[in-house]
């Protein structure tokens, strides 16, 4: 299919230099947050792209220094709108192959394995707080604002997420040891 001929429509004023800077500073974080919400690498890239496109529209309103929080908040809403479990026509028997293929195709390194195995065992409702705090370094008030939950809920979700994370990590470590596959030295 040939693309429609370029058609210049009324332009949106965009600070391209700033957009480029925040993309380079934050795209990996946004992608990671989306992957942690269960999107495959490719889908996370699409959602990251959509996040930045939405941010572009609001660029002038984003305070300097708050870009990351804005992007994470937008990414979370994009992920909600995608509804990771709402693919109407997916055939269940396709999914395992899809996930393994998509992951290996779109990501660098060997990271699919361990963190996926452990974090996938933390409840969906808890893993977001865990990721934002433990991995992305957000503060409690930032997380509360992004997720629109009370500060107390941030603390309680983090506590429960940690319990599940640590239990899952211990189980998987044991399992790897039994299988004799835990050969990489602990760092």
């Amino acid at each position, binding site marked *: 299919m040939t693309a429609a001929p370029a058609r210049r429509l009324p332009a949106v004023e965009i600070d391209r230099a700033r957009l480029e800077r925040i993309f380079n500073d934050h795209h990996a974080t946004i992608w990671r947050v989306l992957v942690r919400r269960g999107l495959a690498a490719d889908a996370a890239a699409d959602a990251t792209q959509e996040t930045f*496109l939405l941010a572009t529209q609001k660029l002038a309103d984003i305070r300097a220094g708050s870009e990351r929080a804005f992007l994470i908040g937008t990414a979370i809403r994009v992920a909600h709108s995608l509804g990771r479990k709402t693919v109407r026509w997916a055939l269940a028997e396709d999914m395992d192959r899809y996930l393994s293929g998509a992951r290996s195709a779109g990501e660098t390194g060997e990271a699919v394995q361990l963190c996926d195995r452990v974090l996938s065992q933390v409840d969906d409702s808890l893993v977001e707080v865990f990721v934002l705090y433990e991995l992305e370094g957000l503060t409690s008030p930032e997380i509360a604002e992004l997720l629109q939950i009370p500060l107390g809920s941030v603390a309680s979700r983090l506590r429960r997420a940690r319990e599940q994370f640590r239990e899952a990590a211990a189980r998987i470590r044991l399992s790897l040891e039994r299988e004799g596959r835990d050969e990489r030295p602990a760092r």
Partner: protein
Amino acid sequence: MNARRGDLPERLLDGEATSFERRVLEDALQRRPSAELTRRMAQAIGVDVVGAPPAPPVARSTSTAAPAAASAPHALWPWISAAVVALSVTGVVIGTRARGGKASQSSPAAAGRFEVPADSPRAPSIPAVPPGRDSPSVGNEARPSPVGRVAGRSSAGPSELRGEIELLDGARAALAASSPDRALENVRRYESRYPTGTFAPEAIAVKVEALMRLGRAEDARRLAARFVTEHRGDLLADRIAALAGLPRR
């Protein structure tokens, strides 16, 4: 990293993580999109990746990469014509598909609010967003909501339609190139990104054909039968039934 953040305990990586937990967390932190994905995102947004090598000359397998001649003769071509694409990009044709919700929410107001930079043919159209709608401080938008979910997908701006079409183009081009696996992968990406997409029925048609070519006739027939049941009277239903070898109704 500071030891404490607000009223929360010290981060595991800063304190009490075991060596195995540390490894898991560090793995997660090291995770990044591949160079190809990063380049693709940057290109779509219209920015450069700092420190990235030049893009390879071979483009990715989307509509802009697939020669029109390769996919034009394909059996499914008529379902989304070049005319649809051209009109879709200007945001005026969304209502032509009789699909609930999505079509009706696309307004002519969407047209004219998007920029298509002449110097960057693959740069994005900027999605129009009502003021305040995407601020993270807007409370209930951050919560999962069926209504919000529908609304989030139904404001199909030109960039979204173009994205849908690109994915389907890629799928059809893959079928034309006798790569049903790749076609199926494109359809899955479509389904993942556009669960209530404007062209979901066309995606089903591609999926049915790809499954048939992969020898997965049972899967294809099950999918086709479901579609036909739910879309009686739709022209595409006949087409999909024929692709799956279902008896004529």
